[in-house]
């Protein structure tokens, strides 16, 4: 079933009436791989059902380049049993380019960590050769494999075959969205929890919210194994799980000395010690490292630089940040700290993570306004009310600093302080009168 590109010469057997594409042709030069050359390979594959479609797609794209306007509109297309996951696209210039009149995308969830073998990639290609346009993006910005370019008629058979080999549609519209996790445990020494387990446990628990959109607006989870946040959870996720640790970082002093010996004292001081954001590091006279772990914020800089010498501690877990999103409608929101530390080790820890996710999704479904992201809901109702709903106690790690505005009612301040001390005592294993 596989076809070898090398057996075909450019233009051979392609649709006779190539649309001229003088502007797009300019994107075939230069050292970076060209998507235009790829589109032409598909157009020129005369035996394939998609060749005419790709000819007209190239024509329409050239038309966009000329007119500086897009010519797609949405619509409604889905597969049996689901309400979402297909991005419908109908051409507004179908009279000129009829073969690409329908050019829908199937959003398909990638394996956690985006691992593949060549066998499964070939299977994906074969299915898309049979039913689609032959154009696939690895991956869209929400993590989906984007199978781009399908007629309405072929959406169902394409999905059926993808589903047969273990792939499922992702999210679109006001729904739980497809998630991403970093490479993490699979190949990274910085990883502080099992990203695959967290990713699959959470998302697979709420597939109904993905496949049958019923939320006020989109809701995204993302999973990064450490503060380097390789999948950009903090800006892009309503619920960001970012790995961290709470005991002392591990220091191999011999490797520290070796590093300082290699780069020199000045370089080590300028680029590691002085760049620590909380001044938690100090280089001793014998070129060993002094770490004030109580000041450390687990930013990852020194671990990144002195990768062989430093490592996360043993008491690993994750921070949960909530409410990250881009512009619409209140402006950009950064994910903000909700839970400074959750342990993610035992099955029960992962069940607790799923339970928290459920509380938040339920709250979002019940309380968010239409087209409101959860970060905006929290802005609207205030963090204290949100914490109460989530059954989470306030923590100084949630803020840059306490409030500066005096406009607040504090008549139950003493009671709240009492609760705080009781909680602290409980955490310290002491008996509490209220119990």
């Amino acid at each position, binding site marked *: 079933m596989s076809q070898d590109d090398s057996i075909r010469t450019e233009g051979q057997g392609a649709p006779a009436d190539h649309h001229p594409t003088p502007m797009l042709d300019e*994107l075939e030069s*230069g050292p970076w*791989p060209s998507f235009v050359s790829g589109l032409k390979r*598909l157009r020129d594959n005369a035996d394939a059902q998609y060749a005419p479609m790709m000819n007209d*797609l190239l024509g329409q794209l050239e038309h966009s*380049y000329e007119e500086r306007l897009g010519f797609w509109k949405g619509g409604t297309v889905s597969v049996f049993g689901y309400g979402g996951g297909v991005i419908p696209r109908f051409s507004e210039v179908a009279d000129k380019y009829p073969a690409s009149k329908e050019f829908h995308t199937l959003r398909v969830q990638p394996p956690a960590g985006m691992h593949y073998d*060549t066998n499964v990639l070939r299977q994906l290609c074969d299915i898309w050769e049979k039913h689609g346009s032959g154009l696939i993006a690895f991956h869209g910005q929400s993590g989906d494999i984007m199978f781009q370019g399908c007629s309405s008629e072929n959406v169902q058979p394409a999905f059926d075959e993808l589903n047969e080999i273990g792939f*499922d549609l992702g999210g679109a519209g006001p729904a739980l969205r497809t998630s991403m996790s970093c490479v993490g445990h699979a190949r990274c020494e910085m990883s502080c929890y099992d990203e*695959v387990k967290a990713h699959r446990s959470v998302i697979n628990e709420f597939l109904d919210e993905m496949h049958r959109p019923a939320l006020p607006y989109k809701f995204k989870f993302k999973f990064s194994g450490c503060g380097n946040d390789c999948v950009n959870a903090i800006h892009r996720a309503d619920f960001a799980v970012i790995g961290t640790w709470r005991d002392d970082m591990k220091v191999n002093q011999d490797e520290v000395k070796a590093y300082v010996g290699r780069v020199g004292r000045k370089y080590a001081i300028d680029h590691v010690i002085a760049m620590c954001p909380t001044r938690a590091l100090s280089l001793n006279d014998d070129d060993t490292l002094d770490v004030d772990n109580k000041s450390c914020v687990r930013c990852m800089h020194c671990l990144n630089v002195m990768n062989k010498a430093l490592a996360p501690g043993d008491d690993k877990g994750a921070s949960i940040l909530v409410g990250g999103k881009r512009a619409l409608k209140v402006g*950009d929101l950064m994910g903000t700290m909700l839970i400074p530390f959750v342990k993610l080790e035992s099955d029960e820890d992962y069940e607790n993570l799923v339970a928290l996710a459920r509380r938040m999704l339920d709250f979002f479904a019940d309380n968010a306004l239409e087209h409101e992201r959860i970060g905006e809901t929290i802005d609207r109702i205030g963090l204290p009310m949100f914490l109460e709903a989530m059954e989470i106690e306030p923590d100084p790690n949630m803020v840059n600093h306490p409030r500066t505005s005096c406009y607040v009612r504090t008549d139950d301040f003493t009671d709240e302080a009492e609760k705080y001390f009781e909680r602290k005592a409980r955490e310290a294993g002491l008996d509490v009168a209220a119990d």
Partner: protein
Amino acid sequence: MSSAPTLRRPDETGVPDPFQYMHPVMKKNYGNWAWHDRPRPGVLHHVAKSGDEIWTVRAGTQRQMDIFTIRKLCDIGDKFAEGHVRFTTRSNIEFMVSNQAKVQPLIDALNAEGFPIGGTGNSVSMISHTQGWLHCDIPGTDASGVVKSLMDMMHQEFIKEEMPNRVRITTSCCQINCGGQGDISINVQYTKPPKINHDLVAKVCERPAVVARCPVAAIRPALVDGKPSLEVDEQKCVCCGACYPPCPPMQINGADSTKIAVWVGGKHSNARSKPTFHKLVVANLPNNPPRWPEVEEVVHKILYAYKDNAKNWERLGEWIERIGWPRFFELTGFAFTKHHLDTWVGARKTMNMSAHVHF
């Protein structure tokens, strides 16, 4: 009785289990890695606590890949690697091998087919981007074309690691900004209020939903030529385009009014400084296919001002924090205007609330 064909019920399998596809050395040492280094740009070398080693070769792709390209990558993966790959969040492909001797032949095979090796460490990695004219229903520009043009320009910076720190670039073809935050972000900026096709509004749009969508309450219901429609207070309108998706007759894109703006200093890593949003540098650049030369020139200036002036490990935004915005505008030669002063909610917090001044 019924002649309707029986439809197949989906298996709601969700996120596929990656272990079935994962390289065996990664599977074996899952959660037990010790350290890594980079023998050369584009190659990572990870060492597990068990002593096992794995080499990763990272190659750039065009993201929107035809099946011939993917099959070619699979052929290379079978012949020169060990049949296992993964993709990065920036659409680079990674081939994993358990033997260092396989690294160079793999690189050679990828290069021979036109795939650049790089994107690691302090390089400019592949641009994360959106769908653009190829597939989006609300794009102000193309994404794949802008990215292809910029990556051609920055090719050397992808295959080398000569930047002060990693550079992550994003493009977005509208202000929904699917491309994300970046050290440098190239985003569409609409410059004119929507043009309304009053004949279609009542038929196509749910008017209260459109009114509610506007972030500055510039849209009101109106009767135009006796037909229910909407009108826009152009004094209030911030040209965000939020009304367009729920109401396509409110055309926000215009061949001449859709412009490109360039932003800097976005960062999602917590390393050193806290994560940041990107900030405006230049607006009103022409949307000029197929090569967007004006955008390329601006990105080039910013990138090399950073490369020439930042200290090791400073991200672009951190470098500007140190030298100050006046110096940044001086070094890059861009104008600082009233449009650089934020006017949105919380704008006061972006002002300099101190007597700290750079000269």
